[in-house]
């Protein structure tokens, strides 16, 4: 109790730093995560390269979502979660006690499995991130920039004041991507962004992801191996909370080193 109190009164310290090798945006270092007593992530190490797309694949329940939510501390919202290990973003450890997880989430945006626009207007949905982060920007400009970046501008430019829930599923998901871009993040995490969409909407999102990598570092979770092969530069294969294999997408798909990876990719289980 008293210790906690002293902690609270302490001077803000500078947090620990580490120079990451050139070209690496994020680095996961012996990361463990527990839900209560069950361990969902087991000592994962992984490098995420700048301006590249990294896909995470694996059978369902293997911890893909948990891992990707660990990259912007979204797991902190679940009270039973405990973590261990470090995740470096540009040389700062986002799990450092001095790091503000709210700040981390502004820098590392996230798109969820189910499209989840707010029940506000389209424009308000996009401006929301700027508003809560106190960013001094012109609303119209942000809305236009983000909608153009997410290839939604032409479809909605005349109905920016309409409720976002009136959009179709695919449009909603692209709106969610646009919304994530508004806070000017450096990394974008996507957790099965196409699993609730039809093939045409999926194709549009895939094109968009390819576009995004010019400006952002992208991590995408998918259970669709063709999708991983199509869009990603690097692929990580997870199984039962462990990172089994990580490498170039072509290498993983054409010449997997691990037996279990090969089995999964050739569809013999999972």
């Amino acid at each position: 109790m008293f210790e906690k109190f002293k902690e609270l009164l302490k001077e803000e310290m500078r947090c620990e730093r580490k120079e990451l090798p050139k070209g690496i945006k994020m680095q996961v270092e012996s990361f463990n995560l527990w839900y209560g007593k069950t361990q969902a992530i087991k000592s994962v190490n992984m490098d995420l390269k700048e301006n590249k797309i990294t896909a995470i694949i694996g059978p369902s329940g293997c911890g893909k979502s948990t891992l990707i939510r660990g990259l912007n501390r979204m797991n902190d919202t679940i009270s039973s979660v405990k973590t261990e290990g470090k995740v470096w973003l540009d040389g700062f450890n986002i799990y450092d006690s001095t790091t503000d997880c709210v700040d981390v989430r502004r820098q590392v945006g996230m798109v969820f499995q189910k499209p989840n626009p707010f029940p506000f207007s389209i424009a308000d949905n996009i401006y929301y991130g700027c508003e809560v982060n106190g960013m001094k920007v012109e609303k119209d400009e942000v809305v236009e920039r983000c909608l153009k970046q997410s290839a939604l501008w032409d479809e909605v430019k005349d109905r920016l004041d309409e409720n976002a829930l009136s959009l179709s599923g695919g449009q909603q998901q692209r709106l969610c991507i646009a919304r994530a871009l508004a806070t000017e993040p450096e990394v974008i995490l996507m957790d099965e962004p196409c699993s609730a969409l039809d093939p045409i909407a999926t194709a549009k999102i895939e094109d968009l992801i390819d576009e995004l990598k010019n400006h952002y570092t992208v991590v995408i979770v998918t259970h669709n191996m063709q999708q991983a092969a199509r869009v990603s530069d690097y692929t990580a294969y997870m199984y039962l909370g462990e990172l089994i294999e990580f490498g170039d997408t072509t290498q993983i798909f054409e010449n997997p080193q691990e037996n279990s990876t090969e089995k999964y990719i050739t569809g013999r289980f999972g």
Partner: protein
Amino acid sequence: MISRRAKDKMVHYTFFGIATVSVLIIFFIFIFLFVEAYPAIQRFGSELLSRDWNVARNQFGLLPAIFGSVLVAVGALVVAVPLGLGAAIYLSEIAPNRIRVLLKPFIELLAGIPSIVYGFIGAILLGRFLYDTFGMRGTNSFLAGILVLGVMALPIIVSMSDDSLKAVPKDLKDASLALGATKWQTIRKVTIPAAISGISSAVIMGMGRAIGETMAVMLIIGSVMRIPVPFFDIFESGNTLTALIAVQMGEAHGIIINVLFTAGIMLFTIVAVMSIISDILQKRTTDKFEGKR
């Protein structure tokens, strides 16, 4: 021996009959109130809405009681809404699980105390306290009614708002958090706006409870048929529709009984309209999150 199918049909109709009886009761109440009120309505007409009440001179204007009911209910909301909403937000969004489990029964307890007990305590302790503090002419006042009804409306407002806040889908909150909003920003800008129709329905139900409450009000309002001057003078005593009925019914005879039934119809109508509105609002919340998404 009846066939199984025939038996099934019979059971079906039996239950339909029972359900019909339940519904008929409600129409029956209304019709009955109306039949009993009719002589008064026929005889006095719009005089019933005037402000003069004098039994000796056969003047039965219900306006002071209507005014009193509204004043007390609005006042109760002024007390109960900020407190109840705050408590509901605390319980549903912030409190750790074990504290929520600990506190919820207390809110239920508050709802479980009989209204006569509220009235008794209000009249003896609160009335006296206000009399001493504010140097009023008597221990009965609108203020006492407002405070007691405020407390009585609290549990409804807390538990209904709590429910509607909890109904906001988690992925909406996650979306907001993932954009770098704090938990409080998320509550303020996403959760509360999303739950707003449920919260309004909670407030309306709280007001309905305040308007319909009888025993507690009857003991502390003073039962004086008069609109205070100035009208916001909550330190005066007055009357409400419920207290008027409860007090007068005991010794009433003749046309005054019919007048009291008219008061009953007014009450019934006000509260029925409020529960219908509240219902529509609540349905809108569930539609928003279940129908569309």
